[in-house]
């Protein structure tokens, strides 16, 4: 039975139900009241974490780390909830989780942070993360982290991963048109950018939460500041589209009339 060292990259994003507005400051673009907005674990990174915990459970001796680049105060709030979902060891780089940072800089900080994990064996490493964030949405960070760590077996849009008895890993990746590509890699190390996966969000388990937070509070306290300044990327403008359509409301009309209008529109 294979033993894995699973490193999950995942940060925080504003709760999707919040209204978001960009603001420009001398330090660059950010979200209005960004530090006040309720935050959640990035959804696809969350799926990656739950899949990691599930895989580790099936493979005794495996370990799971959650590596997060985020403002540590905000991250601590989110971890109070996430820690109850699955067992993991938290590794924190204290820095911006903004969608306006350069994906390369985010990848570099994550790769350097992963290199510093004590006890991580690269030969057993499965590097997990979301295939896109809900902030930048570049879908580029995981590949770059993998490259920086010298891992060139990579998969994106992963919905299923099956480990065979010989250690080979079968992967199901999303491609266009609702189709999947199936691949087989002969084992670790490899990178997996998860889409939704197949697992529901685990229920809260306060006991796991207590164990996690005992281990992870020191990680939060000791988080080193992350330097994301190595970029020339300049955002000249950021704006929320203001286009509002003039909606014609068809009300109290017979069903036949509405249907006919829709059909004519579809055929036009």
């Amino acid at each position, binding site marked *: 039975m294979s033993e894995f060292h699973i490193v999950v990259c995942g940060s925080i994003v504003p709760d*999707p139900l919040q*209204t978001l507005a960009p603001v420009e400051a001398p330090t660059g673009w950010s*979200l209005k009241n960004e530090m006040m907005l309720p935050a959640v674990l990035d959804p696809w990174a969350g799926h990656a974490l739950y899949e990691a915990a599930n895989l580790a459970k099936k493979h005794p001796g495996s370990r799971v780390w959650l590596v997060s680049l985020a403002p540590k105060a905000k991250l601590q709030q989110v971890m109070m909830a996430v820690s109850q979902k699955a067992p993991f060891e938290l590794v924190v780089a204290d820095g911006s989780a903004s969608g306006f940072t350069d994906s390369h800089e985010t990848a570099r900080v994550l790769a350097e942070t992963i290199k510093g994990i004590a006890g991580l064996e690269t030969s057993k490493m499965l590097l997990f993360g979301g295939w896109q964030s809900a902030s930048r949405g570049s879908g580029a960070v995981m*590949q770059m982290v993998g490259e920086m760590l010298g891992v*060139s077996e990579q998969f994106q849009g992963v919905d299923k991963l099956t480990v065979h008895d010989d250690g080979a890993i079968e992967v199901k990746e*999303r491609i266009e048109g*609702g189709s*999947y590509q199936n691949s087989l890699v002969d084992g670790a190390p490899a990178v997996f950018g998860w889409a939704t996966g197949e697992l529901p969000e685990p229920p809260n388990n306060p006991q796991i939460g207590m164990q996690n937070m005992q281990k992870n509070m020191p990680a939060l306290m000791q988080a080193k500041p992350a330097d994301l300044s190595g970029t020339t990327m300049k955002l000249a403008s950021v704006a929320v589209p203001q286009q509002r359509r003039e909606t014609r409301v068809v009300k109290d009309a017979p069903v036949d009339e509405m249907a006919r*209008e829709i059909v004519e529109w579809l055929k036009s």
Partner: protein
Amino acid sequence: MSKVLYLAHTECDGTLHKSALETLTAAKALAEGLGGELAVGIIGADVAAAADSVAGCGAKIYGVSGPDFADARYASDLAAAEAVATACGAEIVVAPATSRFSRALPGLAVRLGGRVDTHLSGLAVADGQPVARRWFYRQRMEGTLTRSERPWVLTLDSGIAEPFAGAGSAEVEALTVDVSGVRTKVAGLECPSEDQQTIRPDARVLLVAGAGWTKKQADGAVHVDVAEETILNFLNATKSSLGSSKSLVDISGEGNAVISFLTHMHQVGQTGASPRHAKGLSTCCHGEEPHVVGWRFISERRAINTDAGCGWAQGKCDVLYVGDAFEIMKKVNEMLG
């Protein structure tokens, strides 16, 4: 002089996808705008037909071909892209944001010591510099950006330019790339049959199904079977693509009645896709901005909803039909025959 490399991969039949041809138009315009030189790189099992199809662009064409490059695979695609970029000394690499290149090309930026920006919604030249446009926070806001790092790898979403047309007879400089050390083998594809396919990226119309389809109706009962039949009949009659709101996908995890053919891949909006179609018809959808971004790129939008004040509709669509989607869509299907 800037060297702009346009990168493409072939489809199963050896051709280039429409989005790849659109990207060539944008790459060519970029090279011209910068007063630079355009080069073309094509990766695939056999690149001859694809090269001929774009020969009219006038650029030197590089090819990496063979059975090892037939399938989408990170390590081999990246090795091929690196070989082409190195051979032509690319400063800017422009490629379509297909699943294949979205997987591989961010790694190219690291290999080349450059930077990458993905899923661009626009690419132009201002003051002699490339200016990229892309969305942030899941299509909630759009920004324009520049940078001076080179090489700069850019992937472009579909719909930002007209497809390039200019076939001819191409001379391809073939590059040899060793991928014997790659540990991944592609086992095959799982594609829904034409009858079962409900996600159709190239369809003219997107039908968005909301959670209302699985809620209790006027008679106090749930009619998921009727909903499924109605939706499928519409999709079959119009060959539309199907999307769903997050709430409809999520209820599958809450033990509620579900529409059997809907998966997370159908989800549009905040944590789903933002498909591009000429027309969109939303049915039984509710919710605010996070879901509505799912049809940010739908040109003409109409909605059916029992609530005239629905956030999906007011100000977001062109026409809102206030009524029962079960009745209206049944009649629509009858009229479509």
